[in-house]
């Protein structure tokens, strides 16, 4: 491990570190533009120059490997002069239009010019102007501001895995361009954060707010089951933008485009007052009227003839409250598995991403079963790509062929291949057996089908037969698509004794055996199948279910409540309220608590604290915030026979998977461009 001296401070760094990292270790801040911890080293901005003894000229610290006995100075007159010189060159062609630039106030160039620049300009010639580029509906370009750090190029090529951005021409004529193509990646929005200047900014956010006037709330995303850590920036009653927050074990510092840009859906199609169906038409009502209508129906019905379902974006608190309410009413019919996936509640390891997301980097063989991580969890896909780039991993896929941004072996289309791998007759089994840390990812496309239990059982036998489950390593992973699912499973929002599951509830509603269905944010089922049942919908958006409902209770979206989320790893995270729900809408658990009063089965908690205390009694692991604990392996899955029907991915359109995204104009535009009829074949069509 090289030991070097930085400004008189001796530091020892990992082999392979750069001088810049050593300087940071010593607590010295080095200005930089092109260098980024998660991207390859370019060394082209020259802002990180430092003085090294016995070197005739300053060195670019980002590109210089740290060596033993180096003596580095970061605060000498030479370094100051070098920084001023580089800054002067960078500013020659920079328009200095900070007052009208969206990056203003959070701009690396602005900050570093203040800290390291000379404060005046000697340049009197004409500045160059660069034409704007079309990078699609998400990224706005003002390329005259570009300082050619090439972070966006490196991000697209390395992390996102799409070779869409490049630098054409050379010297003074160099331009960053996509050749007028929209960047077809689920992670494209991250280049906006990476851009150290205002060349790439957010198109939907353009000119809507200044960074310093926003209220910043650290929260958790609910668009998919990754649980990306986000910061929700709001002004007054509106979410203005959503940015990623650093979490090394979950999303590193990336978020998907849906997480970042679907926020305009929070303003549209909102349910801001209760509705009651009168004379066949939904009409605004008061909370009392809505509750009274529900109470009348519940009291008139046999508890065995009412049921509850929880959707993809329901928070843990509301699911627990609804479960308790139905328990008190005496109905065992409830289910949180909206897609009908055959998840087995008896063993927690059977429905978690046991390796953890960060653990993917330790794996050396990967079997994807009916999972398209690029669309189901774009952040996890980026992690798999990162592992693949490191080399030495065999990846196999069972399911339709798609472009996952990394190479994989296409093993087959359906259950037959899975049984071959389980029995050992498939050549990929040998690769899994030979691997030290093999893993599999079981997608909802393989579980949400009639033979899902048998598929789960087959996946378990693959895991056991190839040594995926052992000391300190559990390579059995289930990739969820919904933020609510794991919490629902953990809290037991599942059929009680003699209770119907989702198929039974929907079937019962069709046939008339179920009189009333309570939908907690359930929008992805076929509403026509609910027959003549009395439908109560509690949720945030006027989507499919609200149109079918007889009573609509306006709830809060994920940015509008303090809520607990459990991601696909089983990691418990707290989302925080950024803005208040619109109009008469309320936080979801409070609605259920208020309804319980009207139904004469009052729930025993009247504060969030009390509810959470009760939650810890039901599921003690909810106390371990942000710690996915290792879970016991056990028996699960059915032994039945699998169909021969090939697996099909659950998500047909990445941009439109939930009511918020469907209400978002930005997502609609992306969908039309990348997925819809106008799209080029991306290879990711489910």
């Amino acid at each position, binding site marked *: 491990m090289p030991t070097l001296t930085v400004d008189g401070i001796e530091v020892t760094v990992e082999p392979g570190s750069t001088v810049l990292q050593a300087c940071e270790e010593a607590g010295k801040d080095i200005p930089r533009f092109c260098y980024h911890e998660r991207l390859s080293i370019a060394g082209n901005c020259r802002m990180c120059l430092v003085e090294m003894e016995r070197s005739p000229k300053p060195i670019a610290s980002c590109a210089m490997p740290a060596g033993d006995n180096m003596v580095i100075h970061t605060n000498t007159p030479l370094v100051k002069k070098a920084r001023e010189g580089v800054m002067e060159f960078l500013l020659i062609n920079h328009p200095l239009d900070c007052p009208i630039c969206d990056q203003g106030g959070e701009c690396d160039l602005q900050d570093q010019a203040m800290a390291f620049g000379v404060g005046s300009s000697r340049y009197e010639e004409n500045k160059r102007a660069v034409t704007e580029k079309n990078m699609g509906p998400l990224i706005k370009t003002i390329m005259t501001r570009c300082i050619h750090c090439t972070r966006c190029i490196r991000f697209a090529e390395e992390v996102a895995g799409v*070779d869409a*951005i490049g630098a054409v021409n050379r010297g003074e004529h160099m331009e960053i361009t996509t050749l007028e193509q929209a960047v077809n990646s689920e992670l494209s929005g991250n280049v906006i954060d990476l851009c150290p200047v205002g060349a790439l900014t957010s198109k939907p956010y353009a000119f809507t707010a200044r960074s310093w006037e926003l209220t910043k709330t650290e929260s958790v995303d609910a668009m998919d089951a990754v649980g990306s850590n986000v910061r929700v920036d709001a002004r007054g009653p509106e979410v203005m933008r959503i940015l990623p927050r650093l979490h090394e074990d979950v999303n590193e510092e990336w978020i998907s485009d849906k997480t970042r840009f679907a926020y305009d859906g929070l303003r549209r199609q909102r349910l801001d007052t209760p509705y009651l169906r009168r004379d066949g038409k939904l009409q605004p009502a008061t909370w009392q009227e809505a509750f009274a209508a529900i109470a009348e129906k519940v009291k008139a019905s046999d508890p065995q003839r009412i049921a509850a379902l929880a959707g993809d974006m329901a928070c843990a608190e509301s699911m627990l409250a609804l479960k308790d309410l139905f328990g008190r009413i005496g109905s065992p019919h409830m289910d949180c598995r909206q897609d009908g996936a055959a998840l087995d509640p008896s063993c927690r390891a059977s429905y978690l991403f046991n390796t953890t997301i960060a653990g993917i980097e330790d794996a050396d063989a990967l079997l994807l079963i009916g999972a398209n991580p690029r669309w189901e969890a774009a952040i996890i896909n980026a992690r798999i790509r990162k592992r693949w780039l490191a080399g030495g991993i065999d990846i196999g896929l069972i399911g339709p062929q798609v472009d996952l941004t990394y190479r994989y072996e296409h093993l087959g289309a359906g259950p037959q291949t899975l049984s071959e791998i389980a029995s050992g007759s498939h050549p990929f089994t040998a690769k899994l057996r030979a691997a030290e840390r093999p893993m599999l990812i079981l997608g909802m496309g393989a579980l949400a089908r009639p033979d899902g239990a048998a598929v789960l059982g087959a996946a378990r036998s693959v895991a056991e037969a190839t040594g995926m489950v052992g000391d300190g390593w559990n390579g059995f992973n289930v990739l969820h698509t919904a933020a609510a699912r794991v919490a629902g499973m953990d809290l037991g929002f599942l059929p009680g004794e003699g209770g119907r599951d989702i198929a039974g509830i929907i079937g019962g509603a069709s046939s008339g055996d179920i009189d009333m269905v309570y939908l907690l944010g359930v929008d992805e089922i076929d509403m026509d199948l609910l027959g003549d049942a009395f439908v109560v919908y509690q949720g945030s958006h006027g989507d499919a279910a609200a149109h079918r409902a007889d009573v609509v209770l306006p709830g809060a979206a994920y940015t509008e409540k303090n809520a607990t989320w459990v991601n696909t790893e089983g990691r418990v995270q707290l989302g925080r309220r950024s803005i208040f729900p619109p109009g008469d809408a309320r936080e979801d658990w409070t609605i259920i608590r208020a309804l319980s009063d009207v139904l004469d089965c009052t729930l025993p908690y009247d504060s969030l604290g009390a509810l959470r205390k009760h939650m810890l009694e039901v599921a003690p692991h909810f106390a371990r915030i942000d710690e996915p604990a290792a879970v016991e392996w056990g028996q699960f899955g059915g032994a039945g026979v699998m169909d021969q029907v090939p697996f099909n991915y659950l998500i047909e359109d990445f941009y439109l998977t939930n009511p918020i995204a469907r209400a978002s104009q930005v997502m609609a535009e992306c969908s039309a461009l990348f997925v819809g009829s106008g799209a080029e074949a991306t290879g990711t069509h489910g």
Partner: protein
Amino acid sequence: MTETTQAAAFAFTPENMERAKQLIARYPEGRQASAVLPLLDVAQRQNDNWVPDAAIRYIADMLDMPYIRVMEVATFYTMINLEPVGQFHLQLCRTTPCWLRGCGDLRQVIKDKLGIGHGETTADGKFSMLEVECLGACVNAPVVQINDDFYEDLDSASFEKVLDALAAGERPAHGSVTGRQTSAPATGLTTLTDGAGAPDVA
């Protein structure tokens, strides 16, 4: 680039295909992208000294490279022409040595005689001109590269003669127009012991 000038499709002729395979084979397995520059050159020679967009896509496919990566290379080098050029493509060096030795006069000759400036082509498609950076023949400055040949030690009169000869369909001799051998001293051969060239041994 206008729509009309771009060919819809491009493919190497059988001979060039053979050549391309040889070029790719020069690089280790998996490093075939290294052959991108030679292949662009082959394509340019096949297609009247310019590379159409279709050829860039063709080469990208052939080398299993993203289109934009080939585009980056093609736009980086002034030697790769992405638009049609004249039958005689003049590349006028304007870097310091050539400039000090009078490349400005040569530019004026082109302007007066052919009526074209940087990046332009004559109406009859015979000549096109590009001002380029150092051609690496500074000792024989000023230099103009015409297609593959260097014309050196030019001045207005000699350059006009070269252009006239080309226009008349002749192939004037390339190299130094003053007749000196390669870059031997312009004032005749010298030795270390005579004249100003003699080292000061006192």
